[in-house]
């Protein structure tokens, strides 16, 4: 099992390096510090979303509502800034809203036992509905100048703020998963939840916190998105939902649960970001990006499932031609 996982990460890493080499050959401006920094800027928003999604998928769950939570957060931040006039309070309220949304998912999944895909299919629509009702379907854009720091500011001259936030969160999540008892429980639940119960793991508690964690990540992502585009709108973040799940799976997290690393997810996110940025520099139609992102996902998984495919082909040939 470990062998398979390692080979997946190796294939992905080779794929990623190959991609970088091709891009830098085709577009000379690709391999410059400034461009690479802007790649990290572009990947931070859905990278943060993907951190939460990774932890959830490790528990063999899925969260379709993270995009809607991000959108709702942008509205909560904008409206609570309008009432309170305090930016810090507004952002904290936004993150609290994300945590509450995650807790709502978590209670239904962990305490009542509804399958995660069904719960989050419902809450995806529900949270988006709340955001639409609150904002009456409008975009809100009366933010103060300081709000734009998280999405448009730079630290130490030219390092984008959201890159730093993403890196810090990625390292924290990685440590949380690999160095804490909670992290081990997350893997245990995903591997075999029945066995986890019998080893004394409080599965419902672990799951509840996992969904709250993803809610908080989605909220942070929403905060950065609205800071970058200087607006709050209910549908911000929706486009990143499928991308963040795809990047997580591309990064080697097994959709059936039990395995996956934050390192893999970061590489998965990077592959998508490099593809988007590089193709843009080469001047390929943005329509081709969708196509290539989908292809990248399928191709990497095909390569890492090669042994299964070979076995099936041999059986097929034996049955039909012998």
């Amino acid at each position, binding site marked *: 099992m470990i062998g398979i996982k390692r080979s997946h990460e190796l294939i992905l890493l080779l794929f990623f390096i190959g991609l970088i080499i091709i891009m830098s050959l085709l577009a000379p401006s690709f391999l410059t510090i400034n461009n690479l920094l802007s790649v990290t800027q572009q990947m931070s928003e859905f990278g943060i979303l993907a951190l939460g999604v990774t932890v959830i998928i490790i528990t063999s769950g*899925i969260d379709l509502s993270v995009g809607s939570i991000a959108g709702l957060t942008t509205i909560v931040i904008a409206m609570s800034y309008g009432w309170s006039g305090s930016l810090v309070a507004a952002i904290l309220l936004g993150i609290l809203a994300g945590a509450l949304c995650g807790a709502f998912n978590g209670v*239904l999944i962990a305490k*009542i*036992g*509804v*399958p995660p*895909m*069904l*719960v989050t*299919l*419902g*809450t*995806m*629509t*529900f*949270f*988006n*509905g*709340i955001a*639409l*009702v609150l904002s*009456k*379907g409008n975009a809100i854009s009366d933010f103060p100048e300081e709000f734009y720091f998280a999405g448009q500011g730079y630290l130490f001259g030219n390092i984008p703020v959201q890159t730093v936030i993403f890196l810090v969160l990625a390292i924290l999540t990685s440590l949380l998963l690999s160095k804490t008892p909670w992290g081990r429980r997350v893997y245990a639940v995903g591997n075999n939840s029945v066995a986890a119960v019998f080893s004394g793991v409080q599965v419902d508690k672990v799951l509840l916190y996992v969904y709250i964690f993803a809610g908080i990540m989605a909220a942070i992502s929403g905060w950065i998105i609205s800071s970058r585009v200087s607006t709050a709108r209910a549908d911000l973040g929706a486009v990143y939902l*499928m991308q963040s*799940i*795809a990047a997580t*799976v591309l990064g080697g997290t097994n*959709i*059936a649960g039990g395995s996956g690393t934050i390192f893999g997810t970061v590489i998965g996110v990077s592959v998508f970001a490099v593809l988007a940025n590089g193709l843009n520099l080469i001047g390929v*139609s943005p*329509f*081709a*990006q*969708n*196509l*290539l*992102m*989908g*292809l990248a*996902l*399928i191709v990497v*998984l*095909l390569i890492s*499932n090669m042994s*299964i*495919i070979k076995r*099936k082909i041999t059986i097929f040939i034996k049955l039909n031609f012998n």
Partner: protein
Amino acid sequence: MNDLLKKREFVMFMMLMVISLCISLIAPAFLTPSNLLSIVMNNIILAIMAMGMTLVIVTSGIDVSVGSQLGFAAIFVGLVALIPGSNIFTVLVVGVVSGIVLGLLNGILIAGAEIPAIVVTLGTMNIFRGSLLLYTNGKWVTALPAWYTSLYNTSVMGIPIPIIILLLVIGVTHFIAQHTRLGRSIYALGGNPAIASRVGINTGMVTMFAFAYMGALTGISSILYGAQLATIDPNAGTSFELMVISAVVIGGANVLGGSGSLLGSLIGVLILGVLQNGIILMRIEPYWQNVVVGLILITAVTLDVVNNRKKEERKKVIYVAEEVKAGGSI
């Protein structure tokens, strides 16, 4: 009576009735024949695709690429309809064949490479949409010929053609699901794949069939889509997959596989259609629609789990009671 109350379809049907009653009390225009007909006519595509999605979900699969498939097939149908000399027959063949090809591609990847359905269709969703946008360069297909666009509003023996098509699709899908070996294999595969393959079911073939059939129905829907709107946007069907899946889930199909009924999915489609129509007629701000739909989805799936658990507990109690009666120890 007690059994009827426990049936998921019946509960959802009562919910549909209650919703309809509430709407008709506030908006008298709701309960008119012409409005009811328009609800049906506006949700034909959703209903056709929900039939295919029910089978896919029963096999414990899921297809999030159907929105992209719909757009893909619709553009091809539209381009073929523009060629002089094409007729209903050519359009039908192109729509259905392109749908089957896309669906079969999903099926082969899922069954052949053992990649989970949600991952495969997440990838193909982007591949289908991306290649479509690349091919059309984002341009719409317009100026569709009259023989094609009139398809949606023509009636045969007083019944609009789309309704006839829907009835045919329901009939064929019902026949496959209830009266063929294949249908039983679909339910068996979703119930327990290991046992299904041990009793000699070719699980790979069954999976491929379910996805190809979903594709075929998407192809049929794509023909109606172009005829209904008279212009085809290459972004057609974006996030439509979520509507289809929601309808099927409201109708009681379990995403873990093994259960789901066509009748339930049709009721799910009607609930979504009635809500959409009712919210407009009641002059409620349209933003409330997602709140209501989301709440109905959450309530439906939660009730399902709670009811199932009660049933299982009752089974356990009966089992223990019989053990005791038989003199066994617990």
